[in-house]
């Protein structure tokens, strides 16, 4: 029964989205109600599934003798599903306003809604191949969103996105098959590959891990493979915010977490050379991303580079292969989702209300758009990692996990984390300072046409700000929820 429920949760938005162009709503309102109803229904269903049906396993189809299309609800997936299903309705609401002047809204909302189901599919996948299926579909369903405005730039970005993503997915697929041939199964079993690991297999499995790590690392914007993310910023902001700060990129991170803890087990990785290599890449990406963000002047691109950096925080935590690392990574996954989506929403609100896209043009905006920039400030401070806002907690957890792990690579990561924190303050607070204190010679009349966005946009922002503060101060429930993954991933604990 619950198996069917998983299927419904995944298929409802996919079908709902696919039907949208056929239904072809005349009125904006009608489409809005339809989309919102689907999204909300999915979210509610998903949340009730998470809370009530943990441990459900469900095989949809035996694709081959060794490959099943299977779903399951475990805590690890639930965390991701929780994040997605909370943020999607907010983004949808935001998107209604943001896209109100755009063309081809049916297509946009169709794919936007489909992506919801597909992302949930990634979260609830019961084995690697199912995850691969949804992972590929996610690429395809988000591609039209990136190229939405049809400009040349958007097309180039789309091609770039496609190339990177498909390459990554294929590489990951090859890794999976390698695991399948030597490990015999693609299921997420907590024993991992323990029984398959022999001296002869070790190198082979190491190579397979790297294939999957770098393959999924594309979506997770790992250093040499991150190039698509900043260029994908040409997409409409709800897409950039939700997909390129939460759903798409997190699905890459999520997949790597799955590989680390559920395909290979932590014991396999701990101390191995591949772990070190992976950690170095993550640490380097952390620094690289922040530095690039600091150099970047385009508002959304700056945030995109910031995402590059922050995703590697999560990867870094996951790759520590310790219980603390796992929980810390998941915590940052959620918190970064909240913070980054808020930042993007503000960037979008600015673009929508004034058409400004460069951070240098934001002088004095705080006065014109007080709510937006209030939230922006909160999110910035949170992302820098100032207690008691949420970003502090997760960064703290990651760093402590690294200290506990105690290897040189771990310390390297701490250093990266700290450098990144400083740069984060530099690239975000300069915007805050600019917006609040435009300085001498600023002409307030130049902004008299800029108004605060309406409640479609500000309500999500306020909700996010409240979440950031509340979860930062009272993370108890959430951390407990996340700690539930340990029972799965570390059965001995």
């Amino acid at each position, binding site marked *: 029964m619950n198996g069917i429920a998983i299927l419904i949760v995944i298929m409802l938005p996919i079908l709902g989205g696919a039907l949208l162009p056929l239904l072809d709503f005349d009125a904006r309102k009608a489409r809005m109600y339809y989309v919102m109803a689907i999204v909300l229904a999915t979210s509610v269903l998903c949340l009730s599934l998470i809370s009530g049906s943990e441990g459900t396993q469900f095989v949809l189809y035996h694709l081959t003798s060794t490959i099943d299309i299977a779903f399951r609800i475990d805590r690890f997936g639930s965390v991701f599903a929780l994040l997605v299903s909370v943020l999607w309705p907010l983004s949808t609401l935001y998107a209604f306003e943001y896209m109100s002047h755009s063309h081809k809204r049916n297509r946009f909302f169709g794919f936007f809604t489909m992506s919801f189901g597909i992302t949930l599919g990634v979260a609830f996948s019961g084995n690697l191949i199912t995850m691969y299926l949804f992972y590929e579909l996610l690429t395809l369903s988000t591609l039209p969103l990136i190229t939405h405005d049809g400009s040349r730039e958007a097309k180039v970005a789309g091609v770039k996105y496609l190339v990177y993503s498909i390459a990554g997915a294929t590489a990951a697929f090859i890794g999976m098959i390698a695991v399948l041939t030597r490990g015999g199964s693609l299921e997420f079993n907590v024993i991992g590959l323990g029984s398959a690991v022999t001296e002869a297999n070790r190198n082979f499995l190491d190579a397979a891990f790297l294939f999957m790590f770098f393959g999924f690392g594309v979506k997770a914007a790992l250093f040499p493979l991150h190039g698509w993310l900043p260029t994908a910023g040409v997409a409409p902001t709800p897409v950039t915010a939700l997909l390129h700060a939460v759903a798409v990129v997190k699905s890459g991170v999520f997949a790597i977490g799955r590989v680390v803890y559920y395909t290979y087990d932590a014991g396999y990785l701990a101390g191995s050379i591949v772990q070190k290599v992976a950690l170095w890449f993550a640490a380097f990406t952390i620094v690289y991303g922040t530095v690039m963000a600091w150099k970047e002047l385009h508002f959304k691109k700056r945030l995109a580079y910031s995402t590059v950096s922050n995703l590697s925080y999560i990867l870094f935590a996951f790759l520590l292969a310790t219980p603390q690392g796992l929980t810390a990574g998941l915590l940052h996954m959620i918190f970064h989702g909240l913070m980054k989506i808020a930042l993007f929403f503000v960037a979008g609100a600015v673009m929508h209300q004034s058409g400004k896209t460069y951070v240098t043009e934001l002088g004095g905006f705080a006065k014109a758009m007080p709510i937006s920039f209030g939230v922006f400030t909160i999110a910035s*401070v949170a992302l*820098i*990692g*100032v*207690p*008691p806002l949420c970003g502090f*907690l997760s960064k*703290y957890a990651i*760093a*402590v996990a*690294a*200290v*506990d792990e105690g290897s040189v690579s771990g310390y390297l990561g*701490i250093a990266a984390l*700290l450098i990144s*924190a*400083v740069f984060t*303050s*530099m690239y975000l*607070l*300069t915007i805050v*300072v600019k917006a*609040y*204190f*435009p*300085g*001498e010679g*600023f002409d307030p009349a130049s902004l008299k046409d800029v108004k605060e966005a309406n409640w479609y946009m500000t309500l999500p922002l306020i909700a996010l700000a409240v979440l950031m503060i509340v979860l*930062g*101060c*009272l*993370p*108890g429930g959430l*951390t407990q929820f996340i700690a539930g993954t340990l029972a799965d991933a570390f059965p001995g604990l």
Partner: protein
Amino acid sequence: MTNVYTLLKITDKLTLQFGSDPTGRFFLCLVTIMWILVGIYAQKYKEHQKHNARFFTFYILTWVMLASLTMAANYLTMYLCFEFMTLLSMPLVLHNGTPESIAAAKKYLFYSIFGATLGLMGMFFVNTYGTTLAFTAGGVLDPAKIAGHETLILWVAFLSIAGFGAKAGLFPLHAWLPTAHPVAPAPASAVLSGCITKAGVLCIIRLVYQIYGVQLLRGTWVQMALIILALITVFMGSMMAFGEDLMKKRFAFSTVSQVSYVLLGVFTMNETALLGALLHAAYHSIIKDGLFLCAGTIIFWTHKEHVSEMKGLGRKMPVTFGSLAIFSLGLVGIPPFAGFLSKWYLASGSLSEGLPVLSWLAPAILLLSALLTAGYLFPICIHGFFPAEGEPEAEGKEGSALMLVPILILAAATVLIGIFASPLKDALQAAAATMF
């Protein structure tokens, strides 16, 4: 810590707690008194500037955070208050809104955040290698856990202490001070220099005595390195001040130098030196606030910012320049003015610690620096009152009561605390004793 109040329990280990101990209370009193005096002064000075509502909002918010910082009962709370204090005091620096002031504010912000981040790193390690994050005399590190990781812990200690040193203007993270002070409004410069730098000092005291513990640090390369940094700062600050013509910048370099006196006492790690440090913190707050207020007054009435332009101005502004002379005497450390006693304790504490070379080098540098201090402060007063022959008559007039009263109170304090030092000394001695 007594009267610990738990505001928020984020996780089992991470709590927001406030409490009070003698050291904290001392800093709280100091900061609050200064804030009130400077606040009074600012009531007049505000005529000089725009956006006063904003200015006073942040002025008060900064005080709130600073006061919270003095009462923070654990590492996390301290870090929180420290970060927010930085963020909230930044608008004070950029208040004038000129491009330079905005750049300076950013510089201040990023130096502080960088320092705080290094400080945060300490917390990561203390979380693992310590028993608690709450401030406990003698340190919280668990000897069983750090066994085998001493090198690591010492590095962490060094970096985190040096990180908080950014706020206190410790070399090499001092550069924001001379940039931020000249562009900020005078009241802001005053509290920035007199009080906020002390927040850095307080954080360092907490780390050295109540987190890492004196046992761990005493006699290690970390102590030596920190003392050397402090001495470099003391000497360099004085030298730079000596060569600087812009008055507020001169005072800013002076602050760099003087706060490191305090840090020197903290790093020497015995009761005498710590007493000297606390005393000097109090004296320096009073004196430096006074100096900046004087500078503000001069700028307010005459728009003269350079020392070289102030020849003969003392005759037009006798009260201001008189106070300036008293502050100068105090800062140089001429008995019976305030600055003498603290330097005495600092020097004797350093000598009694018995560190190789540094034990005698430190007093020597203190002495040298005092000479330099005299060199960069006295000429202002001397030229002010006795301009050379043939100098054109200076323009200017004496300020209003709102400005003069705080200055006079501070000047009086400089004299009185110097003469009747024992109540303060006894109180601080008790405070210092609780640290061991």
